[in-house]
């Protein structure tokens, strides 16, 4: 078997590009290695048996149909019935699934809030950052900033499958950790604001230099085929979630924009030199 000269040419061009990139940006891969090793050492996931998942899915569907049938007679009870149905159908199984799905660097604490909705507090790898997630009545998982009830329409990213939600959190933290090429810009528009930007990690954070509160945030991830862009601008502590779209060519799907309070989601201080410490 012979190899075509053009294959050699193309391969060597790719090699030269990669080597130049390595020489030009000799990034210490320590953090990436630590995260990857943590992921590798996490125990294999144990999903419930397929028949059990199918049975639960069927039960949830039957309950949903019943709820809508009942709703014709008692429209005012739909919301609470839906909530309880979702909790009953999903909570026992997802509780186990969540714990076995967590990335190695995270810890979860189960909380129960409100009308027995499941709420999970996720920490790490930065102890100062807390993401809360809950099983929304609509049937998916939501990342919810502290102070916002699970299931509220303003929660970021409702209806995500659990692994995706965990992946988003993991990547947010990972990007912020890895941003070693960060440059600091002093904003001329807003005195006292500083913008920290890492071109390589595709992350930009504007903070109030005095309090550490996040004023604006621009992150993007590629997760599988999906491109998530989370652009947040802040007035005091309001965050605007602008859009999220699928990355598949010709298949744009945009979610509606929403607003919610991030309260202490980011301005927690601690590991980051650019977040000034604040009490939690």
């Amino acid at each position: 078997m012979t190899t075509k000269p053009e294959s050699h040419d193309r391969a060597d061009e790719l090699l030269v590009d990669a080597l130049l990139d390595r020489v030009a940006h000799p990034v210490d891969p320590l953090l990436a290695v630590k995260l990857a090793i943590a992921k590798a050492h996490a125990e294999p996931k144990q999903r419930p048996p397929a028949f059990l998942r199918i049975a639960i899915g069927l039960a949830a569907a039957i309950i949903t149909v019943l709820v809508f049938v009942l709703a014709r007679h008692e429209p005012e009870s739909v919301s609470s019935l839906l909530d309880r149905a979702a909790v009953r159908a999903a909570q026992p199984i997802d509780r186990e699934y969540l714990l076995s799905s967590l990335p190695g660097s995270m810890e979860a604490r189960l909380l129960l809030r409100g009308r027995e909705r499941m709420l999970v507090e996720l920490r790490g790898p930065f102890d100062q950052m807390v993401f809360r997630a809950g099983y929304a009545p609509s049937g998916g998982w939501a990342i919810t900033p502290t102070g916002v009830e699970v299931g509220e329409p303003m929660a970021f990213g409702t209806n995500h499958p659990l692994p995706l939600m965990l992946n988003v959190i993991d990547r947010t933290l990972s990007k912020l950790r890895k941003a070693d090429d960060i440059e600091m810009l002093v904003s001329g528009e807003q005195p006292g604001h500083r913008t920290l930007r890492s071109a390589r990690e595709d992350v930009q954070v504007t903070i109030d230099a005095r309090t550490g509160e996040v004023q604006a945030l621009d992150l993007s991830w590629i997760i599988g085929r999906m491109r998530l862009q989370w652009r947040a601008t802040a007035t005091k502590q309001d965050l605007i979630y602008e859009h999220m779209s699928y990355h598949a060519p010709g298949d744009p799907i945009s979610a509606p924009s929403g607003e919610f309070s991030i309260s202490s989601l980011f301005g927690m201080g601690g590991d980051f030199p650019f977040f000034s410490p604040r009490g939690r």
Partner: protein
Amino acid sequence: MLDPSPAGPNDIGAQDVGSVPYLSDPAPGHSPGIAARPMFEILIREHAPMLQTYLRAIVHEAGLREELFADTVVVAWRSLARFDESRPFSAWLRGIARRLLLAHGSKKRMLELSPEILDVLEDRFARIGKRPGDTFDDQIAFLQDCLRELAPRSLEVVEGTYFESVPAPQLGMRLGLSADNTRKILTRARLALRDCVRRRLSVLDLGDGAGSGA
């Protein structure tokens, strides 16, 4: 002739490919014991720069590269029992990364590299692995010599492009060149670097499958 990576003890099975989102869950108890962790971590840390550079060569998109890096480590850990210690760990890692990319590419139609190009790249990285040096960066230090061989103007263009990430039009303005001229100089410089790298890696006889023996 290039080694097409025949199945062997260091091969990963199809069941290992395909989870976050394209690796399948392994069978319970498939992971090595806790005693293997320190050694595995040392090996991964040692080979991470090589693996990242390899992924840089085969994947353009930074996010996907991160995913493939992490997934390669995951699969390596879960498949460690099948690693043949008489063969290079670095080649095994690249094999995993390559298969993950193929699995990813076939599903998502993102693959632009032919198996032949991947074979040639494997050959080149294997050659780099045989060069003297304690670390991967030591082994690719020859690239600095190649850069020094460039004409001063070519070196300026290469440094502006790769080291400072300046687009051709702006770089041209800075150097008093048109954008087209800047791109031409860059193309010629890359060809010169390619030839230099081939010489340093003792790649000869390109028309006849020179990459054999990787």
